[in-house]
């Protein structure tokens, strides 16, 4: 092999090594970013999930607020004390919320009833300022209308700001029969079994 060919090969090899190192850096950065996101989600879920140790902030009583139900009736959150309760903040344009309503209606509502668990379904204030269908249409379409123990309505803005400060589309609180918050999480539909386990 001539000298110039050897030199070319050497240059190519160096370039390949450089490229490989660059690729390794990109992959490592990608892995680090993914790990960070996964860790953040995991931290958030474990710190607030009803099945895990509940943070001290969660041991507070549920605030007293008025919910305007879709039939126009008004109820106070405190008036529902005495039975375990799921307070579900949802959004009408969120697909996991419509799926959760249907799962609740078809699979879990009877268990909620037999275990004496109340469901207070509250629309995030003004649907988090995005256009969505009305709450009554949502309920008529996906479930919960005229079901005893299943309250669907709206609450004042401060309630959403207090209990959903990061604007999650589908978040919930578990309240025991003494009115204490004992758990919280995101994505009610996927966590219904653990919710029942915690409250029953």
């Amino acid at each position: 092999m001539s000298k110039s060919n050897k030199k070319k090969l050497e240059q190519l090899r160096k370039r390949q090594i450089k490229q490989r190192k660059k690729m390794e850096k990109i992959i490592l950065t990608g892995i680090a970013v993914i790990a960070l996101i996964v860790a953040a989600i995991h931290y958030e879920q474990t710190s607030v999930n009803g099945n895990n140790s509940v943070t001290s902030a969660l041991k507070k009583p549920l605030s007293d607020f008025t919910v305007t139900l879709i039939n126009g009736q008004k109820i106070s959150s405190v008036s529902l004390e005495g039975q375990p309760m799921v307070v579900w903040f949802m959004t009408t344009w969120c697909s996991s919320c419509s799926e959760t309503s249907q799962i609740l209606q078809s699979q879990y509502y009877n268990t909620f009833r037999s275990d004496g668990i109340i469901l207070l379904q509250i629309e995030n204030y003004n649907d988090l300022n995005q256009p969505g269908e009305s709450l009554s249409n949502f309920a008529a379409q996906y479930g919960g209308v005229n079901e005893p123990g299943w309250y669907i309505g709206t609450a004042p803005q401060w309630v959403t700001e207090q209990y959903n400060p990061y604007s999650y589309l589908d978040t919930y609180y578990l309240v025991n029969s003494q009115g204490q918050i004992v758990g919280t999480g995101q994505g009610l539909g996927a966590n219904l079994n653990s919710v029942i386990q915690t409250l029953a």
Partner: protein
Amino acid sequence: MLFVFFTAITALYFILLPMLPLGTFFLSAVRFITPIQVIFSIIMGFLLSILILLSMRSYALGVRINKGAGAASVLTGIVNVFCCTPIIPLIIGIAGASSPFIFRYSPRVQYFFAVDYPIFYLVSVLLLTYSILTVASNIGCCKLDPITGKNVPSLNQEA
């Protein structure tokens, strides 16, 4: 072989697409698949299975393939995980935004993913088509040069 890949991948999309908004493995969600998701599951399943088979063929022939577009197409197909899970608020939070900022602006981003998700399916289909065309043309024309790591015209093509 194509049929096996097509069935497996389409079934995977059927399970995955309605499940993503819940952000977890939850088989009951499969029954909430929308007509748009059914159509795109079939199209993406078909295209992805062709791409995988062509990539396998390229590998056997020693032709270099561009994996970027194929991977991007899969990723764009599953973006509605950003709709309803806490991922968007968390990412905005990790980026250093304050709570009021997250409260105000994350729903706008999430709304885009919740309502306009078919756009991403369309992008996914276009990327898959582009990948298939690229891989197919490489198989027809080229071979891999082991030194440069680039595709060069094959002997047949040169002749």
